[in-house]
């Protein structure tokens, strides 16, 4: 792999115009990645999902060079109907379209060449990979007191032109004081056997609101890793919803630093898996100052030989008195071969806090099925109704009504 990495890296440097400083930064990261390789189960955070093995088994040899010089045709059939929205379209890792047609132009800035304050360089070896091989990366700035009128949808599309490739993306968002954005990430993959590595950084200034909905619904056999870093200032709110369903493997990681008083973070997630899919959500919420709040709710429905993993950590440092932290994960296993693993972790150094977590897993409640069947439903209907209700609970937490309905339709949930 090392040889391949070096060859591909040379190609990228040759074909793109990076500044000398950038090249140096990239080289540093490449060397770090070569040294540590893909994360494996020896690392605590990767204990349940050995990505090094997963890539080896499902993809084999990866290549890291992508030709970004020619543009791809934007296929408008993947766009979401019935919801007016702004768009950013990525095709095979290249930005093809940025369209903020519903917004006031002077309140949104898009930078694609800026000094990167790199606070994400030491997360894990995948950051190094990302830093070394990412192409351009943009930063979207939303001005003070401006709320986006329509949601922004980011389409992550890949098509059959790529195979066994590694794609690295990086996006930064800065929400200035009292601004807000609703952001939907939609994955549309028709490609096979690629490893997609996405890093996002969100900076939330005072009173700003971020709503981020990540939807991985379409069935595909790509391997994905998404890392979101969220820095929150006073009174800011972040809401993250993850629908984890289509990919062969996806690990969503959310690191949230509650730096300002009265800031709050909400993470809701659904795993709806079948076949041999293996998905993971790992959250890390750091309560760094007093009077902050976090809430997490993760539910899984697992069929066939699928496997879901939830690793959630609440960290409360000694200054963070009056913290309110809550975490709940539930799983329904529908098959004898499915598996649910959880590691809900608390690390607390302050005494005046309210922190709790719960985790439960098991089969569908036979009594409930009996109750429904005695009222005329057949077994299949009863089962569907129960699962519907189980998942609806999470979807109802979505605070943006239009998006809530969109997601309900996507999963096929009924009220």
């Amino acid at each position, binding site marked *: 792999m090392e040889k391949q990495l070096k060859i591909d890296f040379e190609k990228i440097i040759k074909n793109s115009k990076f500044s000398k400083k950038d090249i140096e930064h990239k080289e540093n990261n490449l060397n770090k990645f070569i040294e540590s390789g893909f994360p494996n189960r020896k690392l605590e955070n990767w204990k349940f999902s050995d990505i090094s093995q997963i890539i080896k088994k499902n993809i084999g040899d990866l290549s890291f060079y992508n030709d970004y010089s020619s543009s791809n045709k934007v296929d408008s059939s993947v766009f979401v109907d019935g919801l007016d929205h702004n768009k950013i379209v990525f095709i095979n890792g290249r930005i093809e379209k940025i369209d903020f047609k519903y917004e006031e132009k002077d309140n949104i800035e898009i930078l694609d060449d800026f000094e990167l304050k790199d606070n994400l360089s030491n997360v894990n070896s995948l950051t190094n990979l990302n830093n070394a091989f990412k192409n351009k990366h943009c930063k979207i700035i939303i001005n003070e007191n401006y709320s986006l009128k329509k949601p922004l949808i980011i389409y992550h599309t890949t098509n059959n032109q790529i195979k066994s490739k590694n794609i690295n993306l990086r996006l930064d968002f800065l929400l200035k004081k009292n601004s807000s954005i609703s952001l939907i990430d939609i994955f549309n993959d028709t490609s096979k056997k690629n490893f997609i590595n996405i890093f996002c950084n969100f900076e939330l200034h005072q009173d700003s609101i971020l709503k981020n909905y990540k939807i991985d619904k379409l069935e595909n056999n790509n391997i994905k890793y998404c890392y979101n870093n969220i820095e929150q200032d006073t009174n800011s709110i972040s809401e993250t919803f993850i629908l984890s369903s289509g990919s062969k493997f996806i690990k969503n990681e959310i690191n949230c630093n509650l730096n300002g008083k009265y800031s709050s973070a909400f993470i809701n997630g659904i795993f709806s898996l079948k076949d041999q899919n293996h998905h993971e959500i790992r959250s890390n919420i750091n309560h760094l100052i007093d009077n902050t709040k976090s809430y997490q709710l993760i539910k899984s429905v697992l069929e066939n030989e699928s496997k879901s993993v939830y690793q959630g950590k609440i960290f409360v440092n000694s200054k963070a008195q009056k913290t309110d932290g809550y975490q709940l994960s539930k799983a329904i296993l529908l098959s004898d071969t499915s598996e649910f693993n959880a590691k809900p972790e608390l690390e*607390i150094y302050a*005494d*005046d806090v309210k922190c709790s977590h719960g985790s439960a897993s098991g089969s569908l409640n036979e009594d409930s099925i009996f109750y429904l069947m005695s009222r005329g439903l057949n077994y299949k209907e009863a089962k569907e109704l129960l699962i519907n209700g189980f998942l609806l609970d999470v979807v109802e937490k979505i605070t943006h009504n239009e998006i809530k309905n969109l997601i309900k339709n996507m999963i096929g949930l009924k009220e």
Partner: protein
Amino acid sequence: MREKQIEKLKDYKYGFSTDIENFKAPKGLNEDVIKFISNIKKEPKWLLEWRLKAFERLKVLKEPNWQKPKYPKIDYQDLYYYSAPKNFKEKPKSLNELDPKLLETYKKLGIPLQEQKRLNGIAVDAVFDSVSVATTFKEKLTEKGVIFCSISEAIQNHPDLVKKYLGTVIPLTDHFFATLNSAVFTDGSFVYIPPKVRCPMELSTYFRINASDTGQFERTLIIADKGSYVSYLEGCTAPMRDENQLHAANVELVALEDAEIKYSTVQNWYPGDKDGKGGIYNFVTKRGLCKENNSKISWTQVETGSAITWKYPSCILKGDNSVGEFYSIAITNNHQKADTGTKMIHLGKNTKSKIISKGISAGFSDMTYRGLVDVFPKAINSRNYTQCDSLLMGNKCGAHTVPYIKNKNSKSNIAHEATTSKISEEQMHYCQQRGLNSEEAVGLIVNGFCKEVLQQLPMEFAVEAQKLVGISLEGSVG
């Protein structure tokens, strides 16, 4: 007057050391020392080979470093691996032959060794540094066919049993400290309960580290044969010393069909002084195997001592319908650190496990609950319930929960919950309004918090544990 009393209680009550002449193995860890230990204990050849095999393995093993409390590197060559009171080459036949100083020590500790003083009818095996000094109530137990003796005696008198079960629950190659123990273990207790016998009394072992620079490596093996029942208690103390001492014990429990073992520990090793100097490193491996159907193993522990506690009493639920339980109170104060919890491995059908863990941290201490519940695909209809609550006193201490939950079949249920809280102003106010001072109020509230676990202890121990809970937290409020 009251203050004086508190002052006295604050100090570690068992901190005295006994001035007794010791017979030690040469310092250091090498093949010769292992041979020396084996030789002095007149062990059969297979056991020496077993020890040497463990030592070979030890050479390639590394000390684990995933645990939360970090400790300075231990120099294993700078320890004595065998220490015994002099004149102890031959074990005394009766208590009359015992060194009076030893009897005195145990009297100070409140352990009734003299059989005539059978106050509470508990059979005691006392382990002083590396050797077992006395076992009481022998005849009564022999009558029932119960074997309760030191493991060295068992190796001499019941080699078949020892050979059959030793290392079956904790294999030689398990992890660094378990393997170290396998190589150099010196003494410990051995219990065998024959089929269909309900052990007539509580069995108890009392461990004491006396000599300095000594590591205590005891090995306990308890076998409950078909349909039997035993309740076993363990208590530990050590004198106050400035240096850290290592205690790395292995405890193996085997429950056969329909058998039940109840294992209770009140661990009160010297925790170090207020600034965290000295104290025992308590790195213990405890594991029970529910080998056959309908067996049950229940662990209860009250952990108040030691500078660093690091233990995970575990149950391997191999037999169908077997039950594992774990009740724990861990209290840390000053600079103590504890990383404790359990593992419940569900292998058999219809297996059940229950975990209740209460952690209390005060001062500058750190408390971690670390547990694993692993339900295997074949363990259908298994159930687990876990509850771990932490109580924090002050914002200099930490309380952490790290549970690992693995469910690999659809017919099992696992439920886990955890909370972290502090003693509320309202609770304190309520108690103080009714005439309790703040120390008493805290004691009362903490005892209420721990009640679920304290109830699981045998009566005599429960009283002692309750007192211990109060003493451990003295000086942590106000």
